[in-house]
């Protein structure tokens, strides 16, 4: 190893200057470090970025043509311009947000980096915050190209929804992240054998979120479950916004309050599972 054969250079380091309060309970610098870590990963290959946008675009094209077909033949609600395209795009916000958290977490397990992070000053809640922020970025990278492409292809701009869109987007993003934290906790608890949950877990709530049809379509007992999900209120609100051109504040508040509960539960499960992992020695035994 040529240069390696030289006598080790005596370390001449004085202790590096550390942040004055490296032991603080919440450090934005550590959160930023983790965000940078995931951005480096995204930068490491263009295929990763293309992959983020690929499915949303494909979905949007498929449902866009479906909409054009239905516009000529179907009911009033479907004739509301772009309701299916909007549903596809917003479902993808939820899906991407969930997977953005879970995949970023899985990256640490795949690269056997979990123990290094857990032995560092990084606090678990800082890591969770970084996962949510990177999930927002991944969602934007994934969904924005599809939303922009819908304008020339189908003359439908989801951006015309303005504040309503921001309200829907934020709620779905938070809900997806909360589910992502829960799924990540399950993968930590049960090992990489459970990693498929990261992809399929969110589909458990798809049938009762009312993405493409009103919640009233569901049987009564499922409607009860559906109303406990923030996503069902968002999609109901979306249909009202597109069909009646108004923003239903009640549905928005419902979604917001439910999200507060789901996010708190996501954090609680995520942090609690780390405590279990430390007790059971799971942080060093990453495998199936």
């Amino acid at each position, binding site marked *: 190893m040529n240069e390696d054969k030289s006598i080790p250079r005596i370390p001449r380091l004085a202790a590096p200057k*550390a942040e004055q309060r490296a032991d603080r309970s919440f450090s934005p*610098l550590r959160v930023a470090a983790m965000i940078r870590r995931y951005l*480096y990963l995204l930068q490491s290959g263009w295929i990763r970025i293309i992959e983020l946008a690929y499915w949303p675009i494909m979905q949007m094209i498929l449902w866009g043509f479906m909409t054009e077909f239905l516009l000529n033949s179907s009911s009033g609600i479907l004739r509301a311009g772009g309701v299916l395209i909007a549903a596809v795009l917003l479902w993808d916000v939820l899906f991407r947000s969930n997977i953005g958290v879970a995949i970023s977490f899985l*990256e640490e397990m795949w690269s056997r980096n979990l123990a290094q992070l857990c032995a560092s000053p990084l606090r678990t809640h800082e890591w969770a915050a970084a996962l949510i922020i990177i999930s927002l970025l991944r969602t934007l990278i994934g969904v924005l190209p599809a939303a922009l492409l819908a304008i020339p292809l189908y003359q439908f701009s989801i951006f015309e929804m303005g504040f309503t869109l921001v309200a829907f987007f934020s709620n779905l993003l938070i809900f997806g992240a909360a589910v992502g934290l829960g799924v990540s906790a399950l993968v930590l608890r049960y090992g990489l054998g459970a990693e498929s949950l990261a992809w399929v877990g969110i589909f458990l709530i798809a049938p009762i979120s009312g993405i493409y049809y009103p919640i009233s379509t569901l049987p009564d007992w499922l409607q009860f479950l559906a109303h406990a999900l923030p996503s069902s209120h968002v999609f109901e609100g979306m249909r009202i916004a597109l069909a009646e051109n108004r923003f239903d504040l009640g549905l928005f508040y419902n979604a917001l309050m439910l999200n507060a509960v789901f996010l708190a539960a996501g954090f609680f499960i995520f942090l609690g599972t780390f405590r279990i992992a430390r*007790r059971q020695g799971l942080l*060093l035994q990453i495998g199936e």
Partner: protein
Amino acid sequence: MSSLAVKVSKLSKIYGNTTAVQDLSFEIETGSITALLGGNGAGKTTIISMLLGLLTPTSGTIHLLGKQMPEQRKTVTPKMNFGSPYVDLPKRLTVRQNLDVFASLYGLREPKRRIEQLCDELHLKNIIDRPTGKLSSGQATRVGLAKALINAPCLLLLDEPTASLDPDTADWVREYLKAYRDLTGATIILASHNMTEVERVCENVLMLKSGSMIDHGSPFSLIEKYSRQNLEQVFLEIARSPDGAQ
């Protein structure tokens, strides 16, 4: 400040019916290099994991740098670090990116300067912008060491630091660790199967078997006590004896 860097008292770790570490007590002086020596299943990695806070003990107490773990973990972790062949750095990130992330996690104010320093000392300059997954095992070990030293830790824990290295690189790593300790006064704990390494580098040895400490002392005192010619013979005697120590 206490002259003890590590104080472990009645430490146990039990998984169901399996006892990984049992009633272990030891103290390690600041500025010393100590080896945890034992065969497979002796409890070395379990002990290191508990010291790092990666594993919660079933019972017993751990004090590192005068602070109790895991209660005061956030005060201690910025001053300690570790390296192990059982963990990796993200393979797709370059060496520089990985070190940059950890420098920030450890709260360094001048991460670039520190990374340059380590690159210089550990001869990483020509691989600094290479993806970490494309390094040879010798290069990966030096990068792992750079990560372990990124915060110039007062307490450095290394699990088999020279495993899978050729003798030349292994020798280089040992000399570097000694030089680091001499200059900084850091405390180093290493788990190893390599008796020659332990004899050469360590002042203290904790001999472990089935999760318990069988004996301890300097390599020379142990060799003398067991009337053997080297530490390997001492290790074999302890490992093969049903009762453990003399």
